[in-house]
């Protein structure tokens, strides 16, 4: 489907206008991987809601991104239960190895690192998800192993290899 068609089909899914703005943006994010500016402008025109409304909502909520996401979307749960079991160390390790801070994407576009405030799987903490897959009871040792796994996956997929190419985009 052409981009314009995709956008139209998303807009048509929601008849209740203003109260579905979040849902519309969630569908756009699902379709395009993030919220591209020109798509939001298009949606704003079709629904007849000011673009500034979309912009303020898109930047308010943590789950919306205005930039493309990396190949591997790595989320570390920093909810209380995970925190008291050492989730911060896991974040530190990932930030150090990937050479980016939480909330950033590596220059090569391979990794996006985020912290999430509680995935509700507290008994499995600390918890990391990669592209939606859960890795529970993680510690620094397991984090190092997970990273190794991810790096070889990225390389196999044709992405640039190694931390040498890290650093925020």
């Amino acid at each position: 489907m052409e981009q314009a068609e995709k956008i139209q089909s998303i807009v048509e899914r929601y008849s209740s206008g203003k109260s579905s703005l979040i849902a519309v943006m969630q569908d756009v994010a699902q379709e395009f991987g993030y919220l591209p500016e020109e798509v939001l402008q298009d949606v704003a025109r079709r629904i007849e809601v000011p673009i500034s409304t979309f912009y303020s909502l898109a930047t308010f909520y943590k789950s919306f991104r205005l930039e493309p996401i990396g190949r591997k979307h790595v989320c570390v749960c920093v909810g209380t239960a995970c925190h008291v079991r050492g989730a911060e160390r896991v974040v530190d390790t990932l930030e150090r190895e990937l050479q980016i801070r939480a909330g950033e994407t590596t220059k090569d576009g391979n990794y996006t690192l985020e912290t999430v405030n509680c995935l509700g799987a507290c008994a499995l903490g600390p918890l990391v998800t990669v592209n939606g897959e859960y890795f529970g009871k993680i510690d620094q040792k397991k984090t190092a192993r997970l990273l190794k796994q991810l790096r070889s996956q990225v390389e196999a997929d044709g992405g640039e290899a190694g931390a040498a190419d890290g650093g925020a985009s």
Partner: protein
Amino acid sequence: MARITIDGKSLEFGEELTVLEAARGLKIKIPTLCYNEYMTPYGGCRICLVEAAAGAAPDRRRLIAACSAPAEDGMVVVTDSQRVLEARRFIAELLLSRCPDSEAIRTMAREMGVEPGSQNLDAVGHYLLERAPERRETNCILCGLCVRVCQQIPQRFALSFKDRGIVRTVTPPFEKAAEACVGCGSCAYVCPTRTITVEEAG
């Protein structure tokens, strides 16, 4: 008719009224920053806090924002209790800590007895004005008046908030000049700290 009492003075009213409007009707001054009589109230800056249920037991008294609190029959309000003055000073200190260069905030703070470097700053004031990380990037106090005026008067929606919390800013969409802006200058006009300027863009 309903009746509200502010600082001992009573006002009878029939229509819907906020505590701030009632106070103004009684010629009682309450400081404001994010309030403008031509727009819907916001209740964000908290400088207009006054104490309600002032005559009641301590756990029933509470601070309310005068600009957005509806006046109710039998309400008893004070605008100058110790609790109110402390709260007001705190807000002034927070805003001054955020925008030390703003003339408007400095003046307002001075009126409340808040002066950087002065001897009568308590632990909180001392921290906020002497120890807290220095911030001088902006005089914007995020009162939202510019956003609201653009939405409600020319109704162009050219400005909005970006992000939330301490990193929040006011900006046109995607931080580029807004197509919707018609250059009316309302935003600059209502800004309490003169942070916004309107320029020719050809």
